[in-house]
């Protein structure tokens, strides 16, 4: 059995066991732990010198349509798989005690996990898409049943928006497939890359636009972002972690995987558009974030804003920029998951995330405050966390490509300014929640529980390792790019 298939099947098997009646929490965590161990092993076993796709396996589904369930991983997928398993374990671990329908809760989470793992480990574009969609219904249920705030509206919006967008994406994928000469049609990434390299394959540039809109919406590219903040704000903690930390990266992964190699000209052609949109992400969303009055919305919008940096890296079309973008994907996944985990912990204690009601919690929950400080600083892009390395690389990449036009220069300036903006809202959040005088009613709060603490540390440690020595990730990611 292929190790990657095992990686996909473990969460599914666990959810099956839960449906049959196994202890939900224990089963889920064991499966996630096994998955993490497995993915770390695979990460370590990946042969950097050989590069390329490894751990390959293939099952025929519709061979004459060129659809096969082929699994395989290169450095980028390995990185994303590691991210997925890390966040999955952390999310399951940090999940609070569920009173009603505990099984369904964990089944939904495991399905999301299986979906993202599948998406990151398949070589077939159609399965890439399909696995991602596996998360749609579980998210709908999770937000609707266990969410907070205006959860129903948020769940509806996210579901319809993402459903519609991914259908646009599907249309794009089919168009891409159809633009291959008949007889050579395939969904296999390897063959697509090969055809593109050999110059026999020139998909029309409007297909790129479809893919950009489709993938872009999943990543909350401005102006297709408005589903994300309410969904994250209202989702139960583990769902928000998985969704913003991992699932969202799928869109970026798709852009790197599919669009970069196949649409070299179209990307150039529409780069100005992309740059304009990402400026919207950084500057406009940045300031929207500044105006937020609740922590969950702040983090939700901040995760939208940070996508702008990853897009900047992609738009730079340079080795540095794309490396930076990939590193940032990994880093942002971990940091935003940690932030949401802690956000959930705060909410569980206080029942509110309104800045005007909170304050001074640092005194009664020092460890929570410390960990949140780490997460906030990571999000701000402080050196020592991988986010910083990613951003730096993105800036260097963008600088290289800035010789092509003044728009990129504007984007860089705004991007660097965005670092200031992100500091504004993150420090504001920290200031309002943990610092300042403490209100009487918060005096008796308890500090973070060990499970939550360790699940956040589980996210922060790799983040710092990658921050101190980003080359670990860059070496892996670099296998998809020419040096």
């Amino acid at each position, binding site marked *: 059995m292929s190790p990657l298939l095992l990686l996909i099947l473990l969460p599914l098997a666990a959810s099956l066991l839960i449906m049959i009646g196994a202890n939900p929490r224990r089963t889920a965590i064991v499966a996630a732990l096994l998955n993490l161990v497995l993915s770390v092993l695979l990460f370590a076993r990946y042969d950097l010198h050989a590069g390329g796709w490894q751990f390959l396996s293939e099952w025929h589904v519709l061979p004459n349509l060129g659809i096969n369930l082929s699994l395989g991983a290169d450095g980028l997928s390995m990185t994303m798989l590691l991210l997925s398993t890390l966040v999955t374990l952390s999310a399951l671990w940090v999940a609070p005690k569920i009173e009603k329908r505990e099984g369904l809760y964990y089944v939904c989470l495991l399905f999301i996990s299986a979906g993202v793992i599948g998406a990151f480990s398949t070589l077939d574009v159609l399965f890439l898409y399909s696995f991602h*969609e596996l998360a749609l219904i579980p998210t*709908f249920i999770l937000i609707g049943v266990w969410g907070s705030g205006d959860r129903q509206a948020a769940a509806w919006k996210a579901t319809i928006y993402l459903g*519609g967008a991914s259908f646009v994406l599907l*249309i794009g994928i*089919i168009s891409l497939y159809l633009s291959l000469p008949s007889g050579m049609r395939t969904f296999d990434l390897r063959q697509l890359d090969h055809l593109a390299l050999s110059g026999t394959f020139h998909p029309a540039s409007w297909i790129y636009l479809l893919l950009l809109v489709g993938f872009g919406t999943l990543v909350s590219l401005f102006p297709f972002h408005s589903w994300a903040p309410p969904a994250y704000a209202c989702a139960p903690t583990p769902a928000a972690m998985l969704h913003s930390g991992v699932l969202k990266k799928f869109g970026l992964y798709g852009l790197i995987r599919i669009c970069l190699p196949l649409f070299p000209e179209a990307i150039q052609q529409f780069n100005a558009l992309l740059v304009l949109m990402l400026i919207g992400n950084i500057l406009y969303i940045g300031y929207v974030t500044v105006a937020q009055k609740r922590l969950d919305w702040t983090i939700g919008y901040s995760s939208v804003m940070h996508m702008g940096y990853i897009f900047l890296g992609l738009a730079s079309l340079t080795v540095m920029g794309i490396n930076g973008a990939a590193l940032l994907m990994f880093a942002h996944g971990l940091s935003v998951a940690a932030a949401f985990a802690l956000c959930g912990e705060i909410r569980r204690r206080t029942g509110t995330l309104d800045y005007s009601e909170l304050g001074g919690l640092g005194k009664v929950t020092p460890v929570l405050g410390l960990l949140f400080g780490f997460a906030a600083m990571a999000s701000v892009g402080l050196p020592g966390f991988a986010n910083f390395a990613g951003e730096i690389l993105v800036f260097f990449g963008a600088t290289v490509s800035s010789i092509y036009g003044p728009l990129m220069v504007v984007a860089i300036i705004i991007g660097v300014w965005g670092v200031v903006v992100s500091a504004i809202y993150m420090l504001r959040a920290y200031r309002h929640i943990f610092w300042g005088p403490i209100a009487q009613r918060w005096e008796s709060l308890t500090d973070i529980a060990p499970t939550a603490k360790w699940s956040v540390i589980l996210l922060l440690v790799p983040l710092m390792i990658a921050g101190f020595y980003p080359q670990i990730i860059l070496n892996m990611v670099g296998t998809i790019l020419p040096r």
Partner: protein
Amino acid sequence: MNTTSLEFAVVGLGILLLLAEAFIDRTNKDYLAYLGAAGLAIILVLSFLPLQGPATGSPDSAFLTSDILSVFFTRFLLVSTIVVLLMTPGYKPVLARYLPAEKEGAGVGEFTILPLFVCAGLMWMVSAIDFIMIFVALELATITLYVLSTYLRQNMASLEAGTKFLILGALSTGFFVYGITWIFGVTGTTNIVSLPQSISLLPESSTLPLLFGVALILVALSFKIGAFPFQFWVPDVYQGAPTPVTAYLSVASKAAGFVVLLRLLVALETVPVLAHKLYAVVTLLAGVTLIFGNLAAIPQTNMKRLLGYSSVAHAGYLLMGVASLGSLMAIPAIGLYFAAYLVMTLLSFVVLMVVAEATGGEEISRFNGLSQRSPLLAGAMLLAMASLAGIPFTAGFVGKFLIFEVALKQGHFGLVAIGCITVAAGFYYYFKVARAMYWQQATEETPIPVSMTIKLLIALLGAGILALGIYPGPVLAALR
């Protein structure tokens, strides 16, 4: 083995069961359903033996054919009839409530047996290549379905549905017949296969009358498949008719209509003047049907009515495939879509029947909290809804994927754009059911009892959804 014998076997089975019903004195008529299902299952197995069409030159060969389409849809019809038959024992309580019965079980037997005649009619219809045969087979099926729709004689909804179906159905029959008349008058033939050749010999002046006839036939077929603006009967009849009949109408009867449409278009494709116009019209029909079906479904609150609109919506997707017949993959795509449609629609009707019986109503709000009352039913319904909405790894996704693939291949960009909007709308109204089942609280907590037969049906149909969604290869191979 000859194909026609399959239909006669079904008719024979029906007559046999009628006799049994008449002479065996049992109040519990469940055995009829099981016998019928078993008989059909045997016929289904037989259909996998090497089949031959009627021998060339024999009189039957002018009426029936045995091609991939007919074989596939014969099996399709058999499967859907089996499912519907197995649903009937679960529907007994409703029949008992609305039939003026002298003793227990009266009327149940006929309700179980009549679908067999419909099945035979539809089987003839999918194999027919002559308008006369199509007409007769269509009427056999339709007239029996009038009876079945009105079956709950003391239920106003059922009566109203039956009357509407009867009048509008007869109206469409009128147009069908008139259309046949004109085609026959101009070309001198009623045979679809020989139609192109006859047309090629015609003088130019005959084009207009020919088009007139074809247009009227299209009207009748649009009525049958529920395409806008001939869909008006669909939501009303679906809502009012007995649930197993609705399921049957929405799956089997629609499929037969599509097969005829396909045969007609495939034949006329070789006629340049006609093909172009026909595709334009079908494309337009597909567009308006998609919009109407999906958008009007959004505000629905009655589950059966919602499924009615959804059936119109799916007719739109199927018409999209029909409009793309120029592609080699179109017919397999449509066939697969139908296979998917069968499992997902029937599954939702099965669950609907059980839930409606347990809660006493068919509104979506009756599903509130179903996931707590019966995780099995809720899970099955969720799966069906996911498939109807087109979530990957379900049959519905593969169907949509192939349909949109051929549509794009044929350059129907407008349809695809409409499709994007309607798919999003579809997410909304299908997920409304999921919301009721998972988000809402149930008014009562008691578990819903599910009989073994229903459990078996749910398991089979659910497995079918997943199997088609993950590994559609075999079905697709059967269509090539």
